[in-house]
């Protein structure tokens, strides 16, 4: 089988990156989405726009700014160095940071929509039953927004798996640290190793299709009230 150890490492690394990123995004994206869904502040527009930026920006813009700001002469690079963390480019944590930014709208937006569609009534009902705001959030809002969480998790994970441009610009192509599947495919193609490229690329194609099938399939089912 033309699936070398390098290829397996790339697959494992990609899953690790997507898993970590999705987890972090659910953790930090949920409060952002909740705030965006409920706030009447004038900041809602600017924050919403900032979250959506990766949807329209080419990955080269994000990659370029990350390379410069995370580098030894950039503000974040100087911060991480003074904290003793070293520099983030060419490291796994650096890729996680990049992926969190890059996949942010794919997690925050479905959550925001889910929270918005709850409306005021269930929350008010909970309040009249003397539920605390935290209790309301965890016992009422979260369960009701479950479909939103499913969508956010799937999209965040899949979009991170599909990341390429940003990784190419700040990853440095290091085995087991930053060489993800998309980069490995690129290397195979460039080196005319089409057989290996086919295995990985075909795998990605099937994976992505199944993910979207699961997503749209579950949506269709819930619309029909199963």
């Amino acid at each position: 089988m033309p699936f070398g150890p390098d290829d397996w490492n790339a697959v494992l690394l990609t899953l690790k990156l997507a898993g970590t990123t999705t987890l972090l995004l659910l953790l930090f994206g949920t409060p952002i989405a909740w705030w965006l869904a409920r706030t009447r502040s004038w900041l809602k527009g600017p924050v919403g726009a900032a979250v959506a930026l990766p949807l329209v920006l080419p990955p080269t813009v994000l990659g370029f700014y990350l390379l410069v700001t995370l580098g030894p002469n950039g503000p974040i690079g100087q911060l991480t160095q003074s904290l003793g963390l070293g520099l983030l480019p060419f490291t796994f944590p650096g890729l996680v940071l990049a992926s969190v930014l890059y996949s942010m709208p794919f997690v925050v937006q479905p959550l925001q929509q889910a929270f918005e569609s709850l409306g005021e009534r269930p929350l008010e009902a909970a309040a009249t039953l003397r539920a605390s705001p935290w209790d309301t959030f965890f016992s009422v809002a979260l369960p009701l927004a479950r479909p939103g969480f499913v969508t956010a998790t799937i999209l965040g994970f899949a979009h991170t798996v599909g990341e390429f441009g940003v990784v190419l610009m700040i990853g440095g192509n290091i085995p087991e640290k930053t060489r993800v599947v998309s980069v490995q495919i690129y290397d195979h193609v460039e080196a005319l190793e089409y057989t290996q490229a086919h295995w990985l690329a075909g795998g990605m194609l099937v994976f992505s299709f199944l993910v979207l099938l699961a997503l749209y399939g579950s949506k269709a089912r819930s619309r029909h009230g199963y």
Partner: protein
Amino acid sequence: MTLPRRSAAILATALLGAFAATAARADEVQVAVAANFTAPMQKIAAQFEKDTGHKAVLSFGATGKFYSQIRNGAPFEVFLAADDETPARLEKENGILPGSRFTYAIGKLVLWSAKPAIVDNQGEVLKKGGFDHLSLANPKLAPYGAAAVETMKALGAYDTLAPKFVQAENIAQAYNFVATGNALLGFVAYAQVLDEHGQLKGGSVWLVPGKLYSPIRQDAAILEKGTINGKAKPAAEALVKYLKGDKARAVIKTYGYDL
């Protein structure tokens, strides 16, 4: 409604004029240029256009990547590779005009840091360490990357250095990683660290002795797309002739290449 009609007429005349100018002007030639040769080729292309009227449209990238693109029908007419093997392979595969292959430059490898006093003139820093990342072009795709690997193996330092590698997609990105300081040092082409007067742009550098790696003979060739009825197209032929001429050779030498 005379005004819009008149401006439409003016616009049409202007457009016609532009088309006529393009048609009357000499031809364009699409050139794939190895990334290490970016700066000298930009200069040569500007002079070429001034002197001959032909326009060279340049694309820069890794030699291996250009090879696969050319094999898959890329519209390049002239190829300036970073090695001699790739054009030779293309010749065997009938991808070039037979007999059009020639060496336009012999490349030099350097170890470079954007900071002064990091790289010593013996390359001892490679053995001393004190850096997290060593940047180089992907040795599978870029001849300068392969030369860097060869050098480290010749020094017996490959195994200790390999964990510090950051691999760039081509030599320009390898330079970029060092220039932004994200890698303290890296193997790049001599031409990349020199300005147009042949002076070191900055930082510290070690010119790797030629005995540590096989000579980087950079060959050019006229590709199949640069031919018509088995002959070179005029602009492609003119460019190749120009590259062999004194003016171009002077630029090539200024950037530290041998000839």
